[in-house]
């Protein structure tokens, strides 16, 4: 049982780490989900008892309820964070028209060049125009796709 659980944790964590090295943001997020599930499984295995009742009936041998409570909390937290990351990925897509990390780092380099010219990052670039992947000038207030909604 211990072997099976350790293998489960290892495979989940490994697959998650592999996905996190991908260029695609969505795969990266799935990798994060896998890693957090590996963690949940690890917490469960920290209080591992086989063959014992979860909590009830009292009096007989019961397994440790504390790890289950901790796992439940961890699941809720990772659920919230996953939702947050997905919404952020959507905003990244809206402002860059791409979920490819190489595309994003190219934008980062352009930005760094601009910083070097000015000597200071324009911290008040709210609404400042930028070029998307097709070279069209856009502003944050009017990201692609927003026109259709309005």
């Amino acid at each position, binding site marked *: 049982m211990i072997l099976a659980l350790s293998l489960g944790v290892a495979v989940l964590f490994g697959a998650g780490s592999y996905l996190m090295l991908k260029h695609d943001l969505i795969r990266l997020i799935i990798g994060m989900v896998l890693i957090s599930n590996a963690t949940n499984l*690890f917490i469960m295995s920290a209080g591992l008892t086989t063959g014992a009742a979860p909590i009830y009936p009292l009096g007989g041998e019961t397994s440790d309820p504390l790890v289950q409570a901790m796992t439940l909390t961890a699941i809720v937290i990772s659920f919230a964070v996953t939702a947050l*990351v997905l919404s952020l990925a959507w905003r990244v897509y809206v402002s860059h028209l791409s979920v490819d990390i190489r595309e994003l780092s190219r934008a980062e380099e352009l930005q760094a060049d601009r910083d070097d010219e000015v000597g200071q990052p324009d*911290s008040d670039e709210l609404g400042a125009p930028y070029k998307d992947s097709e070279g069209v000038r856009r502003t944050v207030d009017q990201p692609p796709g927003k026109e259709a909604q309005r």
Partner: protein
Amino acid sequence: MMELPLGILWFGAVIVAMLDGTRHRNAVLSIVILASALVSTLVLGADVYRNGTQEMVVGGWEQGVGISLRIDTLGIIFAALSLAVLLAALVFETANGIKARIFPALVLFMGLGLTGVFFTGDAFNFYVFFEIAMISAYVLASYGETPRQFRSAFIFIVVNLLGSMLFLISIAALYHTTGRLDLVGIKAQVPLVAESPVVLISAVVFVAFGLKLGLFPFHFWLPAVYTGTRASVAAILSGALANIGSYGLIRFGADLLPRELEFGAPVLLVLGATSILYGGVQSISRHSANEVLAYSSIGQVGYIMVALAIGGDAGVFAAILYTVINGWNKALLFLAVSMRGWLVGTAFVIGAFSVAGVPPAAGFLGKVVMFRAAIEDASWSIVALVLLGGGLSFLYMFQLYRRRFWIAGEEEEESAHLPQVIVVGMAVGLLAIGLWPQPLLELTDQAVLGIMGTDTAP
């Protein structure tokens, strides 16, 4: 009384979250809430200072059932520092005009998470509060909502989520090996269990907090995030959120796992020294102000690592004091560098002196205790390292000052008055600590006594 700061922040944050934070009235309300939480923390701190560490279980539950709080001087120092930085950043942003309705609520939630982390007596609640602070930071990192801030927020989330998962794994492993979740119990049990698993767990804890702190091999996310965000958010991240990393290392390293800390001291020393040199050299080669300060942060946490590696009472003393002064310094500098005017320039100079360790600014004190720890340890290479690091930081700080306030100063107009007053107030605070360090030294001394002095029986 003990849960008062947490209670104020909790209910305050929930109420403010429902209001529109871009309105001036609501922003002022959140400032009042944060200020009253800070005041109640200070009152609580006076009580803890007089009567020693306090413990309680929230809601009148039995010991071991409810959320347990355990407040010692170390927690009070960190909570007061973090809340003060958050307050300064919130007032600063309010004076400049808040641009997102959720901003004040996020600052309050982060205050809640940080205070909880510093006050909790339970390892799992430590993780939960830590996540509250981190999630607010994830959203804050994208505050401003430019493409660049979304990119940096994404990096921030991915890296720090991985760190959180590692921390959670190490808590589960600690629970498995010691059978306890309360910090006092873990501390009592650790010497009784086999050494090898605990060493592994300590390594994971170290990586988790090293990631938060932006220590050398785990620093790669930090420059992108600090340069991308707005001044107030950068001040919050470097002055308040980074405290989790150093607090965690002091609490879990020096307090709970002292044997393993000593075992890992050479690694900490090497990584700390690399951090100092790498951060210093990179800062000198950078042009944009935020980037210089970001790399400077990487260098400064190196000192904390070196102090922990030296260990003993003097080492932990230096680590705590350096963290406090560094957090305040960084918050001041990130705010000051985004503004113009001679008052801000003066405040920046004081902050820069403090980073370089020139008297009478408070940073001098930090360097002195580092020297004291190194000399007591009779390790002259560390003395040389601290001297070299100080020289490097003086160099890049002066470069930055010249570039920001001498050359480009003519074209841009002076910033608004209130933000300038805040920054000058923070600088005066730095000077005051430098000129009259006795209260801070005594507090730190008591915190060290609480960690190192007493072997609490189970």
